[in-house]
Every structure is written in C-alpha cells, then in structure tokens.
C-alpha cells in the first residue's frame, strides 16, 4: 500500500530523516516509535505531504501510495490529502458545530447534497463510536464536548471524506486512560477498512494495537518488523533498550 524508498529529509541543513526505506500493507496498523525528536512525526507527515507547509525543507527519495509516487509534479496535494486522512496529537476541532466539523471535509470537496451529507455525517460518527454520545447535540459547538470526545470527533471528521489511509500522530497523548482505551478499541475496528499508521510514545499502546512496529532513532530507521518480534525479540540492542524502557 505504502512504499518508501531511500528517503532523506532536511529542515534547512538539519538532516531529519536518513536513508529510510520501508513498506506498509493495506488493512494493517503500523506503529512508529522512538524517543522525541527522532523523526517519526516528520516521517508520518510525509504521507500526506503536510511537510510541504514548512518552508525551507528538502526531500529526496520516493514515497508511493498505491503504486503512485505522491511527490510527482502532477499529483494534486488536496486530492492526496483527501485519500490520506490525518488525526493530530491534540484534538483540533474547528470552532463550528459538531455536525459542521464532520461535514467540513465533504463540503470542501464539493459535496453539497444535504441529504447525503447528513447520512455520511451520521455514518462517520457511528464509525468513530461517537454517535450515541452526540446525536442530540449535533448543532452544539465542538468545544462543548470532552477532550476524548473531541478527538473521536476529529477521527470522524477524517473518516467522513472516506480516505484509504489514516495517519494518527500520537492521537491519545493528550487524553485520559478511558478515552485512550476507547480510541484503541476504535482502531481495531477501523483496521478492517483502512490502513493505519500511528505515531506513539506509549510503548504499551504500540504493543497492544499494531501489527508492525518501526523503531526510529536520530532520524534513522533502526528496526522494522512484526510488533510481536520487536517487543519480545528485537534484532538490535538499541531497540531492546528502548522497548524495555531502559532509555528514551
């Protein structure tokens, strides 16, 4: 599904990602782990070209999704981002109603059939396991619900545009344990329809939810493999030190 070859990425002169190659399969969850500043978020943001927004950056190598190099000139960024959804570290709903938040993606992509929008909003909220909690207050501001609910709203918002891939940048780091477990549950269900890449700080979380895990350190991909193997019997010493909590 996703294929990365010989990626090098620079912020100005800082070499943030060094020579990374890896592939991810459809309908799996891949966890990216590593200490802060190791480049895992930067790596995640390559897949929907969010790094384009940062001035003075350079990228070499290829990132292809579904066999298409997404950094080719004729690839349209907004089109790509519609297919690759993203959930951010902190819940970031728009200052609009709950309904409008979910409908936003459809509206900007040219959908204006009210009936279809209403249907899809409901579907997305159900998919994000939020429908029962908010169905009576769809007109209320998105800031009126709890942080955990807001984050699930952001997931629903991403799902409403029907992407193939869902990128999650530490989606539970700002949440309480109960909200976190709800989101983890959700990821299991979403796996059936989506390819998920998640960045996380939380080792247990990575172990619990992911099929594959990639360990990053100082801009390099140290080890990548099945989650079970990474957490029980990694090839590299450094990986073992990190997953057992001896450093980082």
């Amino acid at each position: 599904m996703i294929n990365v070859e010989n990626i090098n990425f620079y912020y100005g002169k800082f070499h943030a990602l060094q020579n990374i190659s890896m592939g991810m399969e459809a309908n799996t969850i891949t966890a990216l782990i590593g200490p802060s500043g190791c480049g895992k978020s930067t790596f995640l943001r390559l897949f929907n070209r969010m790094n384009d927004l940062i001035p003075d950056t350079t990228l070499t190598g290829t990132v292809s999704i579904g066999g298409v190099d997404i950094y080719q000139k004729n690839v349209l960024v907004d089109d790509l981002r519609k297919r690759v959804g993203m959930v951010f570290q902190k819940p970031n709903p728009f200052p609009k109603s709950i309904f409008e938040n979910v409908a936003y993606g459809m509206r900007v992509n040219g959908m204006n059939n009210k009936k279809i929008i209403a249907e899809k909003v409901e579907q997305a909220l159900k998919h994000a396991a939020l429908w029962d909690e908010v169905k009576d207050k769809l007109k209320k501001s998105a800031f009126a619900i709890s942080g955990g609910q807001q984050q699930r709203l952001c997931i629903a918002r991403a799902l409403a545009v029907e992407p193939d891939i869902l990128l999650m940048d530490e989606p539970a780091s700002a949440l309480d344990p109960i909200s976190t477990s709800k989101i983890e549950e959700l990821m299991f269900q979403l796996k059936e329809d989506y390819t998920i890449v998640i960045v996380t700080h939380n080792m247990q979380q990575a172990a619990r939810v992911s099929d594959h895990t990639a360990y990053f350190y100082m801009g390099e991909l140290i080890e990548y493999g099945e989650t079970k193997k990474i957490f029980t019997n990694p090839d590299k010493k450094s990986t073992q030190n990190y997953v057992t909590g001896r450093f980082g």
Partner: protein
Amino acid sequence: MNDEIKMQQIHRRKRLYEAIFFGLFRIMGFMVVLILGFILCFITMKGIGVMSWEFITASPTDGLTKGGIFPAIVGTMCLIAGSMIFAFPIGVLSGIYTTEYAKTGKWVKFIRLMTNNLSGVPSIVFGLFGMSLFVNTLGFGDSILAGSLTLGLLVLPVVIRTTEEAILSIDDSFRHGSLALGATKLQTINRVVLPMAFPNIITGLILSIGRVSGETAPILFTVAAYFLPQLPTSIFDQVMALPYHLYVIATSGTNIEASRGIAYGTALVLIIIVLTLNLAANVIRNYIQKKIK
C-alpha cells in the same frame, strides 16, 4: 466512472478558485507597492529640480515663491527636540511602570485602554487641546513650547507602546538572575532591563520623531507661523515648520502656481526625513534580531 469525472471537475474548480483569489491578492499586494512607488517617484521627480544647497539653507523670498525653506527646517528641528525632551522620558517611565510595576490588574488594563484611546484621538483635537491649555490657559502663546508639548502628547502613546514591547520581550530569567544576587527591583531595571531594552526603545524614539516631523494639525494653532524669516531665539517664539509650510504654499500662498516648485521641494524634504528615519529604525531592528539569533 461518472463519479470520477465529476470529482475531477470539482477539484479543478477548487483549484481554479484558489488561483483566482490568490492571484487577486497578489495583485493587491503589488498595488500597495505601486502606490507607494508612484507617490515617492512623483514627488522625487518633481522635487529634485528645486533641490539645491540654497534651497535648504535660504529663507523664502518673493511671497514664498522663491528662495529656500531654511526657517521651516529649523522650526521642525526645534519642535522635534522640544517634543522629544517632553515625551521620551515620560513615555519610557510610563512604559516601565506598566510593565515592571503594575503588571496585572484592572488598573493596568485601564491605563492600557487610556493609552489606546489617546493614540486614537485625531491630531486636530490635540491641536484644539494644545491651544486651549498651553496657548491660552497657561499663557505660553503661539510658541515652540506650546507646540512641542502638544506634539509630545501626541506621540506619547507611540513611545509608551514601544517601550512596553521592548521591556516585555526581555526574558524574566535575566531579572531573576539580578534579583537573586540581591539587587533591588530598581537596580535590576536600571542595570539589566533598560540596557537590554534600549535599542528597541530607540526604534520607538526614531519612529516618533518621524511622526512629529510630519504632523500639521496639532501645530496649526499652537506654534506654526505663515512666514517668519528670522530664526527663533527662545522657546516662546513662533516658528515655521515644514509640514505647515507645505500646506500653506500648496493651498493659500500668494501665488500658488508660482510656488509649486517650492512645494514639491518641501514635500520631497519631508519624505526624505520620513524615509531616512524609517530606514534607521529598520536597520536597528534588524541588527537586534541578528544579535538575538
């Protein structure tokens, strides 16, 4: 398949809108540059002809149609000096008070509101006020003193605000370092805060000089003289001033057509002053930014 084509159309329209609007904004941005460029070029082209050593060192003659603008330059210099002597120390002290002493609370909010209000008061109202208080009530008459005080009041908010910004940009750790060594608050301000904030405060000073040198309305009734070839000898004298001089020869001189040349020259001198001051402020600002990095 049909859906695919429809989606493509929608995406094309999305991008077309973006191109149109951002293109429009780009044109607007260039328009602003063009407006400034046109004004500067126009005044420069027309004014450069009358520029000469004599123009800036001689008095006006022949009913303001010939000669120079020396007395007006001197007058404006007097007003700059006078207003700054008044506004600079008070403004800086005021900025220190609101940032270092009265950091929080309703009172500071109120002071800020007043400063904002004062900066929004039209310059002609300052003129009225200056005339009423300084010229009439305090009996200074039309004089450099009255004009300087009026102009000083006008630029006070500028000085206060830049001082506040300069002081607020200094990290608290420097203050704590000084206080931890046993220095009093006043010593800390004197020896640590002010020296660090100084270059930024100077930028404020330069900008307020620019403002003072161009203001006309506040000096109409407090100091400005229509024609006064001799230079002032005391702070109770009237003076000519560049902006007022330009107003006079542009609208109500004895022979408006004949004095056009002088008017262009005067406008050019004013623009050069403002340009130089802005440039100086920018240079200092860039210097500071580099130093911080």
